[in-house]
């Protein structure tokens, strides 16, 4: 597993990966359901297919966030040192960024799950 991962691609950009996945998942879920319900009479797709499709998207999003969390964990040195990592050295900056990315990934994971919860319970469009 570790061998197929790129070595140290982490930068300030990877900090935002998980929140960006959350944002994209959020907007796709809302837009797809809104358009589907507006076009319910026109499209010949079952709402359950939409739910399954968005469920798969949710799994993909969670997978990407887990990957991002793993890279962040690696950047953090697999928890070898304790926060706050506040010394003015490159090493501490790297650990701090890794820890921050890991926490953001956790937040994004929970947020994606919360966005997906209505897919379980809402079984149709309101007329």
């Amino acid at each position, binding site marked *: 597993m570790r061998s197929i991962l790129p070595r140290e691609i982490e930068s300030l950009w990877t900090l935002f990966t998980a929140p960006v996945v959350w944002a994209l998942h959020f907007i796709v879920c809302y837009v797809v359901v809104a358009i589907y319900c507006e076009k319910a009479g026109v499209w010949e797709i079952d709402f359950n297919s939409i739910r399954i499709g968005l469920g798969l998207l949710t799994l993909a999003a969670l997978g990407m966030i887990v990957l991002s969390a793993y890279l962040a964990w690696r950047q953090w040195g697999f928890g070898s040192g304790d926060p706050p990592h506040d010394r003015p050295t490159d090493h501490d900056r790297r650990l701090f960024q890794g820890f921050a990315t890991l926490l953001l990934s*956790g937040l994004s994971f*929970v947020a994606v*799950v*919360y966005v997906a*919860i*209505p897919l*379980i*319970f*809402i*079984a*149709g*469009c*309101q*007329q």
Partner: protein
Amino acid sequence: MLGALFVCLSLSSCSGVQSALDPAGLEASKVATLFYVMLAGGGLIWLGVVGALFYATRTGREPHSERSAGRVILWCGVIVPVTVLAALLSYAVWLMPNMRPWAPGGEGGLRRIEVTGEQFWWRVRYLRADGSLLFETANEVFVPVGERVLFVLKSPDVIHSFWIPSLGGKMDMIPGRINHVALEATKPGTYRGVCAEFCGPSHALMAFSVEAVDAAEFEDWIASRRAGRPAADPGGLELFLRHGCDACHAIAGTTADGTIGPSLTAFGARGSVGAGTLPNTVEDVARFIRYPDEIKPGSRMPSFGMLPEGDAERIAAYLKGLR
């Protein structure tokens, strides 16, 4: 003693014609259940936080190890809140289809009542199954107990919101859109509906009465409203027409057929004048005719303060006699 008084006073405000905590409909009872579950959840969290506060300030004042502090943060700051929020969110979302029920393939089979929010009153049109108009009334809604009714909600001017706390809702009425809400009354009685979206200076004076009656009584009411009865006092009608009231108001069975203001057919049977603003007495109706803008600021009805002595009272008495 004071505590008991406080509890009594708070509980007594939970009942009444306009209380979401004293439900008389299926949807409202779901809302009330949701409220109590959230209240219990919030209460438990509060007890936990206050308990932890007491523990930290009274009994557990010695320093804790960094390890146990980290565990407290992990459990009380992450795992428990995430789980509790997920549970409450799931419960609320699971309840939603019950609060806003929808039928697959539309709600064509339901009895339809079209309600239009206007500044600052309610146009209520009872529709046939094919969508054609049965009759129009204003500021009063009759619903049969035990039958789901579909409210078709519109607005020609600004955003209003249709809310009968005792039965369910609320649902916005948005210009250019048609919204729907289906409600079912379970308890006969008189309730109060309100506008729940600020719509202008008389927003707070925009209410309507809701009568939930059993099915037979409802059918009788529909039949009596459709029949339209000639007025008892032709003199009052003559004044009503001469002063031009018919330009805006309609009365079934007469030549008055204005559509700008509320229909006054069977006005005497209504409980209030001015959409729940004043009691329906001859004095108050006459006062409303003379000074509508003082009673309801921003109302579109012009002032008829210039009417000759006694005319407003005669018209009011005539309207009060319409059943």
